[in-house]
Each structure stands twice: as structure tokens, then as C-alpha cells.
């Protein structure tokens, strides 16, 4: 359980006010934080990550206080076990994709790094520098990098904001896959209804720093199922798995049924 209770003075478009949020996040949940621009969504993420310090606050993760003003506890970001995906990705341009992920990894995590590279479909770009990647690819690297330390809390700050529809969809699929596999508690800031419909199990609407609504989503929407043609399919002998690519997605699978598929076949992603 992650308990967040913070108060912080803040300037809004309508004038000065305060960010006042009290919320509990269930383990393994994916909560979408929505609301108009400047309502305090990113500020809340930054406070949780330890990048900003609130006037008053208490953040407790699995009974361990990350922040408690009364007890004068304020763990720095390095000690908070968060994965933070910034809107601008904040990838380090001097490092390749692989080096960006390795930089964050703990020792002896090579299998985990490889798993993340496979799941996010980055194998072909592992030795590329971020400047040579598309926006969607960069966000997938940022996601892999944020997850390589197996954080207790994943914070996503509008990861889809600068992406086109296809890249967004590809990233959503990767995010869902990783969330299903790892179950990392996630807080996602987004402006788009489609992200909420397809990803979140809970939606919190923030207006001028206050929670206006907080609702559970019983069943994720399936209205955005994606059907795409296979552009490449081949068997990776070394890893004993099929590598399948569509226009927006690369996936790997050990399922022998893929041997029946050919380039040009339609496949459907159920999200």
C-alpha cells in the first residue's frame, strides 16, 4: 500500500492556491491522474519522487516512510525506489540505448536488461544513441530504464503526449504487457481518454490541486483493439523464440503457433 498525503502552495492559472492530495494506491494498481493543464498532476508526481518537497506531507510505502514532515523524514530520490518516466524522456544523449538501461541497473542484472529490451522491442536499436530514435522508441527506452531497478512505484508523466497515434498505441501495448507481467504499482499522468480507458483501473481527476473525482474502472475498455499486418516474422535460433514485427510493435514469443504465420497476415492485439 502506498499512502500519499501532501499539501503544497502552488500557483494556478486562476491564482495562488495549494495542492492538497490525500490518496492511497493499492499494490499492483495502475492509477490514471487526469485533469486540466496546471492542475498539479506533474507536481504530485515530483513530490512522490522526492524531486520537490511539499510544505506538509506524509508518503508511506509498505509501512516505510519516504516523507514525514513531523518526524523530519525526507528520503532523497535515490532512496525512494521509484521509476520516473519524464515527458521529455530525459534519456542521456551520450549513452546508447543499452548503456542508458545499464546505467540504471544494479549489478548482475543482465538477464533482466535483456528481458526489458525484448519486451519493449528495442533489440534492433540497442547500440543506437537516443537522438537517432523516434519519439515512441525513446519513450520505450525511458520505460525500460525506469523499470530496470524493479521500483516499487512507477511514475509516468504524460509519456504519450508527444507521440502520434501509432506510436502511442505501441507504447500502450508495451506498458500493459509490462504491467501484467510485473504488476508494478503505477501512477500515470495523461490528458487522453484513450489512455485511461485502455490502461487504468482507477481514475483520479485533479482540478486546481484538489481531487475532484476518484473512481474505479471495473473493466478496461476493449474498444481499441488493434489489428495490424505482420511486416517481419522470423525464428531466433539463439533464443529459441519467434520475433514478430508489425508497423507499430515488435514482440517475441516461444509459442510454436507462430510458425503458421507469414508476412502480410493480420494479427490482433487484445488490450
Amino acid at each position, binding site marked *: 500500500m502506498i499512502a500519499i498525503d501532501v499539501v503544497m502552495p502552488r500557483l494556478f492559472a486562476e491564482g495562488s492556491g495549494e495542492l492538497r492530495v490525500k490518496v492511497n494506491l493499492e499494490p499492483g494498481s495502475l492509477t490514471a491522474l487526469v485533469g486540466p493543464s496546471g492542475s498539479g498532476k506533474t507536481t504530485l508526481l515530483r513530490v512522490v*519522487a*522526492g524531486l520537490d518537497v511539499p510544505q506538509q506531507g506524509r508518503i508511506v510505502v509498505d509501512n516505510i516512510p519516504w516523507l514525514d514532515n513531523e518526524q523530519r523524514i525526507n528520503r532523497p530520490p535515490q532512496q525512494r525506489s521509484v521509476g*520516473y518516466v*519524464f515527458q521529455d524522456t530525459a534519456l542521456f544523449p551520450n549513452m546508447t540505448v543499452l548503456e542508458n538501461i545499464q546505467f540504471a541497473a544494479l549489478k548482475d542484472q543482465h538477464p533482466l536488461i535483456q528481458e526489458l529490451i525484448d519486451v519493449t522491442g528495442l533489440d534492433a536499436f540497442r547500440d543506437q544513441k537516443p537522438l537517432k530514435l523516434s519519439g515512441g522508441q525513446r519513450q520505450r527506452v525511458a520505460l525500460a530504464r*525506469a523499470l530496470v531497478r524493479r521500483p516499487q512505484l512507477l511514475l509516468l508523466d504524460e509519456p504519450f503526449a508527444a507521440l502520434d497515434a501509432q506510436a502511442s498505441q505501441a507504447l500502450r501495448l508495451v506498458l500493459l504487457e509490462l504491467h501484467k507481467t510485473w504488476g508494478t504499482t503505477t501512477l500515470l499522468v495523461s490528458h487522453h481518454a484513450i489512455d485511461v480507458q485502455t490502461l487504468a483501473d482507477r481514475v483520479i481527476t485533479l482540478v486546481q490541486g484538489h481531487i475532484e473525482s476518484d473512481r474505479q474502472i471495473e473493466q478496461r475498455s476493449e474498444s481499441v483493439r488493434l489489428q495490424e499486418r505482420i511486416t517481419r516474422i522470423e525464428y531466433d535460433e539463439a533464443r529459441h523464440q519467434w520475433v514478430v514485427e508489425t508497423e507499430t510493435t515488435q514482440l517475441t514469443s516461444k509459442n510454436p503457433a507462430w510458425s503458421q504465420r507469414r508476412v502480410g497476415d493480420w494479427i490482433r492485439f487484445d488490450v
Partner: protein
Amino acid sequence: MPIDWGPIWLTLRLAGVTTLLLLVIGIPLAGWLALSRFRLKPVFEAIISLPLVLPPSVVGFYLLLTFSPTSSLGAWLLKTLNLQLVFSFEGLVVASLIYSLPFMVHPIQAGIENLPVSWREASYTLGQSPARTLWRVLLPNCKPALLTGIVLTFAHTIGEFGLVMMIGGNLPGQTRVASIAIYDEVELLHFQTAHTYAALLLAVSFIILLVVYAINKRVTV
């Protein structure tokens, strides 16, 4: 009259040693100034910047008083380390370190501060310390600033005159750097020798700046 290359070599040696030592001192200092939220940071910034506004003779005068064997620090250095910092090459190096410090620190600090804040924040959330963030993320991405710091320090040390005169005097082979030699030769009306030294300094300075601007154009992330 054959030219004495001693002052030229001494000048280049002084500039080289000063630049190397200031790289070691200046990088962590610039990183700390760029990343720290320490309240008294402006005090440190003002102290580091003092040589920019003070006449070299003022800095030299106070260093002369501080390092003189008659002062307590000078006496202690001489007694315990057998180190005399006035009228010696070592003294010139220490004085140059102080006098050229802002020329190394300021460009690197500005280079780091101009990088996106999200890079260092991302590194922190990935569990990395400020020191590792500086070394692995920030410095490799501000190479032009590093190069500028190195060159400004080297070039500034080559051109020192007042400070050297105050703390080093004019001892051949020890403290008689090129700028002092030029002054000395003019005093002796040896204009041809002075001209040779001056032309050499001009050429060296121009070549250094030319190389820097050429490299700076090529340095990309």
C-alpha cells in the same frame, strides 16, 4: 643575439601544470556550485570570482604577505614541508591556481547549468549519486564548456604578469616567465629579443584559440 628559450618553456610548464591541477579542483567545484542548493553558495561564488575584478597586483600582494617566510603560514610551510612559496616556481603555481580558478570553474558551471534539469533528476530517480551523475551524465554532455575552461585557464596563465612579478620576481629558470622576460628585455632596450618573445606568445595564443574554435565546432554529443 641567440634567444633564451627558458622563459617560453617555463611559461608553458606553468600554464600546463596550472591547467591540469585546476581541472582536478575545478570540475568537482563547478559541479557542486551547479547542483547544490546550499544557502551560502553565493558567498563561495563571490570568493571564486574575486580574481576577475581585483588587479593582479592586489592578489599578488596578499599572496606575498601570506606565503612570506615571516608570516605564520609561510614559516610553517618552510619548516614542516621545506616549501618556500615566494620567489619559487611552486609559489607561481599556487598563485596561478587561485588567480585562474574562475576561468576554469565558470564555463564548466555554466555548461552544467545549461543542460536540461530532467537529466540530473532522471539520474537521481535511477538511484545515482550527484557525483556519479556529474561524472557519467553531465560532464560528457558539456564537452565544449570543459574545453573552454581548459583553454581559458591555459591562455590566462600564459598572459600573467602582475601576479608573477609580485610573488615570483624575475629569477631565470624559476620565475622568469615570458611576460616578465619581455618587460625585462624592453627595459634593457633589447627590442629584437622582446619582439621575438612577444611574437611567440602571440602565435601560441592564436593557435590555441584557433584549435579550440575548430574543435568546438566538431564536438557534438
